């Protein structure tokens, strides 16, 4: 079994595309390398990316950049050069322009377009090259009812736009069929917190009901359009509301025969094994025409959860050691694959070992590769997606859509992930050996 994992892992690794020679890509790669080597520099970079959409002018932008860099003790030569430029107004304008271009380019790597319409072209390109997508609409935090309504309208528009475009895409059997039936070409991920301004941890039912009110028409429309609607998971503060909403809406007999939907399990949560059992139990008891997709992720709010818990004197709800999360990820993968066909498993990870493990366990259970979906994030898992597609696996790329202001929180989180010393991607970029990449956690 472990032997199979190793050979699967090596074959994926061998299928990785050779490094792109795009000079701009090389440039932001360089910036991220610098950032991952120096914690102060990394902080400066994040704070700058974070503030950039709120800056009123290039001068203002350059001023912020200089203030952040000023707090870095040891400045590499290119940074020192940037600091010198900021002494004059003209220098600041040039620095601001260069920095703005840098942030824009970095954003484009992770964000597929400003609107669903703009995203159609890159999505079709991915589809033609063997990868499906799930679209995610980035937005400012929802603090008013009007904002929640607007987000719901944007979701509706995304569904319509994708549904109008998708029929023209060429046939890709791996991406649109598994042994349980057809898989929608159109796939949208939605966030419960964006659908209501009323989500509060101490009163989950209030936000749940308010979000459900806006979610229901989306589900109905997705069913009509034959689209998949995936309900994303966020921080623990919204967990009860999100799971409550899923169970309540999807148990409604009116929505039993569609649409295809999905939920997310976060393997870094200590309580995730019980949660997964709950979902599987529910799926068994509540059969749907199209079985629910369960996307297994590690979880993207680790820092938030740990800091929040520490400030309140709580035990963090997440595993604090990366190895524990990785081990749990493997255990949940097996549990999830065993639960097929009551659920459709989707394993979302950039960790080569986790992906190889999912493929080999699925085979060990006697299932077809086509009954396992693998998912990655745009901008982080592109090479892995290409390799998996080449090997004939079904891979889906999570593609955020939105403008700079809306996308900044997302971008910062992705950058953090990409420059973290603990991340698999970091290891990969540093040229860690394949044996280590595939070592058991």
């Amino acid at each position, binding site marked *: 079994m472990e032997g199979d994992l190793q050979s699967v892992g090596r074959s994926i690794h061998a299928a990785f595309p050779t490094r792109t020679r795009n000079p701009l890509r090389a440039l932001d790669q360089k910036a991220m390398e610098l950032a991952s080597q120096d914690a102060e520099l990394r902080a400066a970079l994040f*704070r700058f990316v*974070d*503030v950039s959409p*709120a*800056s*009123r002018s290039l001068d*203002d932008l350059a*001023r*912020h950049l200089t*203030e*952040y860099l*000023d*707090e870095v003790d040891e400045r590499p030569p290119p940074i020192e050069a940037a600091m010198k430029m900021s002494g004059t107004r003209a220098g600041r304008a040039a620095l601001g322009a260069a920095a703005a271009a840098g942030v824009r380019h970095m954003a484009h790597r992770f964000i597929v377009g400003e609107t669903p319409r703009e995203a159609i072209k890159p999505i079709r390109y991915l589809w033609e090259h063997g990868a499906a997508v799930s679209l995610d609409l980035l937005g*400012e*935090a929802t*603090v*008013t*009812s*009007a*904002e929640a309504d607007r987000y719901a309208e944007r979701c509706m528009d995304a569904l319509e736009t994708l549904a109008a475009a998708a029929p023209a895409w060429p046939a890709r059997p791996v991406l649109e069929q598994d042994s349980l039936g057809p898989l929608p070409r159109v796939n949208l991920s939605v966030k419960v917190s964006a659908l209501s*301004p*009323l989500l*509060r*941890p*101490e*009163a*989950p*039912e*209030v936000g749940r009901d308010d979000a459900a009110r806006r979610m229901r028409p989306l589900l109905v429309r997705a069913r009509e359009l034959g689209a998949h609607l995936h309900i994303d998971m966020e921080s*623990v*503060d919204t*967990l*009860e509301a999100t799971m409550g909403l899923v169970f309540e809406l999807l148990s409604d007999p009116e929505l039993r025969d569609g649409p295809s939907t999905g939920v997310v399990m976060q393997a870094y949560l200590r309580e995730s094994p019980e949660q997964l059992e709950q979902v599987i139990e529910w799926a068994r008891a509540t059969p749907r025409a199209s079985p629910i997709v369960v996307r297994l992720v590690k979880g993207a709010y680790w820092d938030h959860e740990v800091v929040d818990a520490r400030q*309140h*004197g*709580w035990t963090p709800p997440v595993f604090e050691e990366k190895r524990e999360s990785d081990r749990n990820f493997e255990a949940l993968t097996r549990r999830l694959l065993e639960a097929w066909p009551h659920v459709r498993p989707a394993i979302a990870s950039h960790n080569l070992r986790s992906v190889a493990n999912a493929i080999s366990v699925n085979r060990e259970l006697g299932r077809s590769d086509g009954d396992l979906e693998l998912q990655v994030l745009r901008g982080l898992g592109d090479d892995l997606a290409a390799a998996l597609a080449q090997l004939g696996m079904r891979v889906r790329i999570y593609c955020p859509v939105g403008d700079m202001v809306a996308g900044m*929180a997302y971008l910062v989180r992705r950058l953090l992930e990409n420059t973290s010393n603990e991340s698999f991607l970091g290891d990969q970029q540093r040229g860690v050996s394949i044996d280590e990449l595939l070592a058991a956690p």
Partner: protein
Amino acid sequence: MIPAEFRNEPILELRRAAVRDSLSDALRELDSRLPLEVPALIGGERSVSGVFDSTDPGMPERVVARAGLAGEGEAAAAVAAASERGFREWGSRSPAERASVLRDAASRLRSRRLELAALQVRECAKPWPEADADVCEAIDFLEYYAAEAVELGRGRELLQVPGERNTMRYAPRGVAVVIAPWNFPLAIPCGMTAAALAAGNAAVLKPAEQSPGSAGALVEALHDAGVPPAALSLLPGYGEAGAALVRDPRVHVIAFTGSGAVGLEIVRAAAETPDGQGHVKRVVSEMGGKNCVIVDSDADLDDVVPELVHSAFGFAGQKCSAAARALVHEAVAERLVERLGGAVRVLDVGQAESFATEVPPVIDEEAQERVLRYRSLAGDGVVASAEDVPSSGWFVPPTVVFDLPEDSPVNREEVFGPLLSVTAVRDVDEAMDIVDSLPLALTGGLFSRSPATIERVAARSPVGNLYVNRGITGAMVGRQPFGGNRRSGVGSKAGGPDYLLQFVEPRIVTENTMRHGIPVE
């Protein structure tokens, strides 16, 4: 000096359904015992001269506590007990002994956390998250001052030269009077009383007439833990008892938290030194605020809106630290007002016992009238309000007003309710000029992502507690020592390393150790 063993009492994880259920159970249990009997306790004796009731602000016909009414006579008797017996018994104990009694009281409160939170929900309409935090803060004060008392007991290091031994130590002052407000019905009376006791004084506690129940629970815990009855008296009642305590020549320290009018009156009255009073009174007076949050153009409005809403409207704006004004850069003012307005319109105004409630009723009818009066002064400056409020109970619609003249009373006076005034400013400097022009300087806030702006505002801000890129309420013991400057307070910092110094007098002993020209040490 940070006490090594001190940790903040963890608040409840209200995002867990089981935790919420346990609180609802505690409330049901409490309800079955209402009204609570809270006697006036004078040197261990129950006084029976009269009674008064505290009621539920959300349902005024519900009596929460029936308290013994203390007046001038009781005040004099309590001070006599403290001064003749209490101080002698308690003040002669070592700091370590006093600390261990306070820690015992902390553990008694800890074992009653749910019940005490439920009591605040009923007696003060304090919503669960705030009620729980209040109980935790009370426990923190006991633990923190216990540790500080031991530390202070070691005295301070002084410069030493040959032939001379210098020591500095701190002695309790004597009788401390504590006059407490209702808005932190357990934490604030507990903090002031615990500090007085930790330092070795005898204490007389006069809680607010709106919240005798919580004060009763506090005094019970302290007595059960071993504070001698004469060293801690409880005088539920109105201003009459408080005024008598302040005037009493046998009182050494007055610790007060409450309104500016009463606070300044106490400062004046305590300055009198009638014949026979062998000391000057020390006054610790913490009064109100007119707290401003500055929002610069580079702020992240996604953070600003929820933090501002929580700071201004949490517990219906009835925290001294609550946000009263937002001074917003003109480049983002319109956008912020729009989003803030939308967020205020969906605020859940309701009974404190519901976990959904964000804005509970205000404390009493007088408060309701006051806030509504200021709201009507704002006229057509009102831009958003949550109008769907229950009809019975002392509810006030949470309201945002915009662009009022600088000299409007809404912009200058403390409203102490769910009313937030937003003003557009040219830049941060204009905002700072406004902050500077206000006589009150308790808390303040700044939202900016520029390190230079943060430094500039921090250097110029007169307030006691400045919060950057976060809400401006919720000071934690040991982390944010709390108290105001200017006319907001005397600069003492509750829950901080200097606070106990208000309750002691320093004594220096210098001994000549030379004998026959030879230093003998």
